[in-house]
């Protein structure tokens, strides 16, 4: 039995959702393994019983079907058993929930770029040192706005070991923010702020994801990358990006009389 449980855990581990980028994704994976082991026990038990029944009780000569109409004790038994499984799953889910939902503390070497005022109901980061990034879903690109107003499209750059809190919304239609290795999905719905967080620790890692809510014809092409860099590289990147944006703004201001009144909007990635 312990060996079977071990096998089930190995199986659950092998097929589980993407993991490894952030503690919340890791905790989701732990929850997944526990749930899958319970689910496999139930599944194999019921399917096994069904298989045994249909083989064992095939019609044969001389066999008489037992005319049973029911059994109250059995009924109560499997009702209680099913209820117990639900209780166990609920307890497990709530035990893992804080690790998935509540942000962890930032590491010791963090960029202090995040100094934004707390919004309506954002996750609370212990110690308060967080990087807040606004995520804005638009047909068919993601825009990331940093606390100093610097923004980027498609690629989000974050410092390692920094707890990042995302405020997610949609510009036009509903989208869904999802980088599998950094945790679950959070819908980007126009008119609403949705929050999630992650803390990536591997410098140089790039985590890929894409929009997970149907948002139109090019829904499949609405990709997003999260690139993890060292805190100093992050500061450099932010400064460079800011300079680029300022230069572009100056150029467009200079050319403004020549341009149509539509706001400049970067094209498809």
């Amino acid at each position, binding site marked *: 039995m312990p060996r079977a449980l071990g096998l089930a855990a190995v199986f659950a581990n092998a097929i*589980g*959702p*993407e993991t490894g980028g952030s503690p919340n994704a890791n905790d*989701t994976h732990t*929850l997944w393994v526990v*749930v*899958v082991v319970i*689910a496999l026990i139930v*599944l194999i038990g*019921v399917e096994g019983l069904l298989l045994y*029944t*249909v083989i064992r*009780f095939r*019609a*044969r000569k001389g*066999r*008489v*079907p*037992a*005319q049973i*109409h*029911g*059994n109250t004790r*059995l*009924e109560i038994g*499997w009702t209680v*058993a*099913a*209820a117990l499984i*639900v209780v166990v*799953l*609920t307890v497990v*889910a*709530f035990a893992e929930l804080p690790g*998935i939902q509540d942000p962890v503390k930032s590491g010791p070497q963090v960029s202090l770029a995040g100094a934004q005022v707390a919004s309506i109901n954002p996750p609370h980061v212990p110690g308060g040192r967080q990087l807040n990034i606004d995520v804005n879903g638009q047909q068919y690109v993601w825009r990331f706005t940093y606390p100093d107003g610097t923004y980027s499209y498609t690629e989000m750059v974050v410092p390692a070991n920094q707890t990042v809190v995302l405020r997610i919304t949609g510009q*036009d*239609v*509903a989208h*869904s923010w*999802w980088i*599998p290795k950094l945790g*679950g*999905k*959070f819908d980007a*719905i*126009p008119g*609403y*702020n*949705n*929050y999630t967080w992650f803390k990536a620790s591997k410098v140089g890692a790039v985590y*890929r*994801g*894409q929009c*997970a*809510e*149907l948002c*139109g*014809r090019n*829904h*499949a092409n609405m990709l997003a990358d999260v690139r993890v860099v060292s805190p100093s590289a992050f500061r450099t990147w932010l400064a460079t990006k800011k300079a680029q944006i300022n230069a572009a703004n100056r150029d467009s201001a200079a050319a403004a009389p020549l341009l149509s009144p539509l706001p400049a909007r970067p094209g498809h990635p």
Partner: protein
Amino acid sequence: MSTTTVPTTRLKDLPRPQVVAHEVPRRRKAWIDWVTTVDHKKIGILYMVTAFVFFLVGGIEALLMRIQLGAPDNTFLTPEKYNQLFTMHGTTMIFLFVVPMMAGFGNYFVPLMIGARDMAFPRLNALSYWLFLFGAIVLYISLFFNPPEAGWTSYAPLSSAAYSPNGGIDAWIFMIHLTGLSSLLGAINFYVTIANMRAPGMGWGRLPLFVWAILTFAVLLILALPTIAAAVTMLLTDRHFGTHFFDPSQGGSPLLWQHLFWFFGHPEVYIMILPGFGIISEVLPVFSRKPIFGYKAIAAATIGIAFLSLLVWAHHMFATPLSTAVLAFFMLSSMIIAIPTGIKIFNWIATLWRGTLEFKTPLYFGVGFLAFFTLGGVSGVMLAIFPLDWQLTDTYFVVAHFHYVLVAGAVNAIFAGLYYWFPKMTGRMLSEGLGKTSFWLTFVGFNVTFLVQHSLGLEGMPRRVYEYADTGNLHALNLISTVGAFILASGVLVTVYNVLRSLRRGAVAGPDPWKANTLEWFTTSPPPANNFDVVPRVRSVEPMKDIRRTVARATGETSGRTERQVRA
């Protein structure tokens, strides 16, 4: 034809409302007969044939999508066409196949099973069918213009005039209204029929479980349909008449659409599957030669599931901005559904236990249903855990889950019902060999198609994407899934061939080929216009078993065939 004698003695013997034929109408041309019919059996067949045609159409749409996804970065379909296909596929399978198919079975068999001569309102019944057909035509006529492409869920604001300017969404709205009205009228008809027209002696405790399921299906439709009707009307006025129910820039709420849609949409899931449960509850006891195990528990579980299904809608919205308390409530209510569902599965297995299982095709599909539905139920409980759902929702894991419960669940139940009742409807048996071939092809094809889709979702493939990059195992898994879809389709085609062939060449069935338990087997196959000359008094949940026993006692035969002269 017959009239009933009216007993005048006691209150409980007062006559039941029923349809009585007064004259024998002249024979008309066959097609006029079908178009003008108000006979519940003909309407039932119209429902089933139309729904089956749309099953094939929806299947072709699925195959086109699977071809597109068979290779990474494939260009077989444009994104526009792909979005149209999955929208039409989902809409077709739900609104034009499963629900009307179940309505068809209900139409044909509810009056027969309760010993009635027709539905309570035969003309209303015909109207239901024609509204359904017109709804289907309205949706499919859009193929020649602009089919809808916002998914069967048509989430606002994507479905608003700004982002879906062409008329596809309007066709979809019109279809929802027409089929919704059709289902609503049908549901009222079922409810009135079952409440008032049962055979003498058929109390609620002797109602066949399929009829319990249709009754619950009808009540759920009555409760859920007004919400979707309101929601699509609001969408229509948003699109054309300047309202802003779902427009965030004017103070409207896109989340309102999701709440309204799923308040209908989740009961809709049970509207599709409960009649399937009912079919399984009829098929299993007949072919295990045993009474159903725990009749009361199954009937109670049906009602329990229906009640709970009205309280779980937001589990489709776990990734939207909702407070943790709301998430926790919907997780718990969703998981609690596992309890009545589990009760049903255990009762069905207990029905097979110590029986003498006669492996005819209906039992194959019945057992296939149990195997598939258990898997889909288990993955459903996993999806109900909202922290896990954040990873799994809107991926192929969800696609796999709901195809296990709906395609494998509902379709296996429908095929079980088809093989079980085809002899009653046509007077001819379906071929057992072809039936079993069809079962194994669909069983294998189904698992090959959808088992790997769990892994696709876990590897990060969202649903409703027309292409994917060649990373990880995505190509291999998608290719396996595509191959499986074609195996599944071949299994369905075998059944289509079986039906067409058996209509003419099938063995003659006789009134009761399976030695079944319920009243539809008391009359001839196919039954005459008003079903029964004489309605027997029902003394148990298995009236036909009682009748066979009475016949055996009266004639001294040990295995007496049913005689129609027998009176209770």
